């Protein structure tokens, strides 16, 4: 079912903290990731949807029906918490069967359904075990099973993977996506991990100080961030303040870069974004003398970090104080780089987009 969050405002009493003018529309089957630094209001937004908090204004609709004032326990939403929140005195089976018990399903039937759900998350053999004797990843899978077993209208995930170690997190990502698709359920996934959001979501809402800065598909958010803030939060980035000087040039202080200026006019202040994977190492150009080739820089490496598949380096451009962040799969020495004008993005100046 679809979720529509419309113009929601909520402020924690006595503080300036909360969420402001938040609107998100999630169609049936979508997985919307809400990302942002801690304190950006992303968990508060999830609480509003779950019904743990009431918005001061605005409304929340599920499948077109206004649920703003429906109590949490009647919303029929599956919530997975960061702390798992499994009931320690109940076996896994009883944990998963609990929502069915509340809904008056007979014992035989609810055990059958709970077991099927545990099987689905690969924990059928653990049905009689207690949460305390299981690993974090297993507990989170039980929590996921419990949140899905009663066919909720939506699935709410509150940083479900942040307590797990890195390898497990990646594995759980695909399991969550699989289950979510299989159930065709609309999901709202709150996380501070941008990589998690990029890999799982159909749309991402980036929040900052209680407001949504940009709501777009992962590709759009990465390729066309609407502000410096988004560009810096999602992935690695070279960000320079600059001024458009001509139809195909932008001055970034230490150099003038060739680029496509799009709708910007000459003299406009802009933020220039270059993703590190677009900073291409060049074999030393024997013929061309430096300075003739635009977007080409020479210099020593200020840092050089091996990351396995990738190698991330910072080139200290000769004759300037600029450092250019780049990524390459090449293992050979880097002394010269080139930035394709096509990959030089211009963003509005300043941190946050003007409303």
């Amino acid at each position, binding site marked *: 079912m679809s979720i529509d969050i419309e113009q929601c405002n909520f402020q924690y009493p006595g503080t300036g903290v909360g969420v402001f003018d938040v609107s998100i529309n999630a169609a049936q089957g979508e997985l919307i990731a809400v990302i942002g630094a801690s304190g950006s209001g992303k968990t508060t937004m999830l609480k509003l949807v779950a019904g*743990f908090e009431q918005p001061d204004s605005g409304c929340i609709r599920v499948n077109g029906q206004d649920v703003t004032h429906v109590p949490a326990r009647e919303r029929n939403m599956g919530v997975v918490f960061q702390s798992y929140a499994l009931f320690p005195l109940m076996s896994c089976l009883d944990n998963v069967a609990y929502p069915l018990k509340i809904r008056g399903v007979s014992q035989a039937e609810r055990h059958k359904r709970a077991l099927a759900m545990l099987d689905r998350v690969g924990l059928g053999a653990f049905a009689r075990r207690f949460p*305390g004797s299981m690993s974090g990843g297993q507990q989170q899978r039980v929590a996921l099973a419990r949140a899905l077993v009663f066919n909720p209208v939506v699935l709410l995930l509150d940083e479900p993977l942040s307590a797990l170690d890195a390898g497990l997190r990646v594995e759980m990502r695909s399991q969550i996506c699989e289950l979510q698709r299989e159930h065709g359920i609309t999901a709202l996934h709150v996380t501070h991990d941008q990589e998690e959001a990029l890999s799982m979501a159909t749309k991402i809402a980036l929040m900052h100080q209680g407001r949504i800065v940009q709501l777009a598909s992962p590709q759009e958010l990465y390729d066309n961030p609407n502000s410096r803030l988004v560009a810096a939060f999602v992935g690695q980035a070279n960000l320079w303040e600059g001024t458009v000087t001509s139809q195909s040039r932008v001055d970034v202080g230490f150099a003038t870069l060739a680029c496509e200026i799009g709708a910007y006019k000459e003299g406009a202040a802009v933020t220039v974004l270059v993703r590190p994977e677009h900073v291409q190492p060049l074999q030393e150009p024997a013929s061309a003398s430096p300075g003739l080739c635009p977007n080409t820089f020479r210099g020593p490496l200020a840092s050089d970090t091996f990351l396995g598949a990738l190698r991330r380096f910072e080139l200290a451009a000769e004759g300037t104080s600029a450092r250019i962040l780049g990524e390459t799969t090449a293992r050979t020495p880097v002394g010269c780089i080139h930035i394709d004008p096509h990959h030089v993005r211009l963003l509005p100046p300043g941190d946050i987009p003007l409303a």
Partner: protein
Amino acid sequence: MVIGIYLLYIFLPIILLIVGSFGESWTNTLLPTGFSLRWYLDVWHDPSFRRAFLMSLYVALGTSAIVTALTVPLAYALTRSMGRTATLVARLVAVMPIAAPPVVLGFGYIIIFSTDTFPWLGTTALIVAAHVVTTLPYMFQTLVADIRHLHLDRLELAAESLGASFGQRFFHIVLPSLRHSILAGLVVVSAISIGEFQVTNLIAGFLNRTYPVVLLQAFYGATGFACATTVILLFLAAIGAGAGALTARAAARAKESV
């Protein structure tokens, strides 16, 4: 060394009492002479001690039941709404037994409950009430500490999202989670209730004196008899505490072994 002296200081009187309770006679000697069970038989055949023994059990049971019924909801409600006022109330309840000495409480009861409006001095109900007031803070503190430690708020939020009503959450989640704490609290509550002397001595009637109150009479008689009665009190308190501790351990073990 210090611990050794401390243990000696605690256990020596108890050991002497046990030795004395089996001694034939004990006058002006370091240790009693002869061996006898007659003091225990004397206590057994003394109707006032038998009545007091049962009265103590009865009061301890009543106190435990009422304290549990009052404190669990109180502690739960206070930790859920941990505002400033709630914290203040919690602190007040916690320091109450230290701030108000039992004697003060006892005299207060005498003044209030000997009036024509509340002529309840000497009733068993009043003894139970007094014990409830004295022991409640101990149960309260145990529960408040554990409710926070167990993160019950998280579990309740989860249960709420799964559709559980307030009552369902309380009986399915909160109460079972607190059973160990309640047991631990009950050990203290019953031990204090069984040993309580000061207030009970002031407000009990002739026929509903508890064991410690009657015990005082024994010290006007033979030493062996006094020792035997005291050992029985010790035994009574130990049963209460031991039963609680054993149940708690068994429950904890049952949970582990699954």
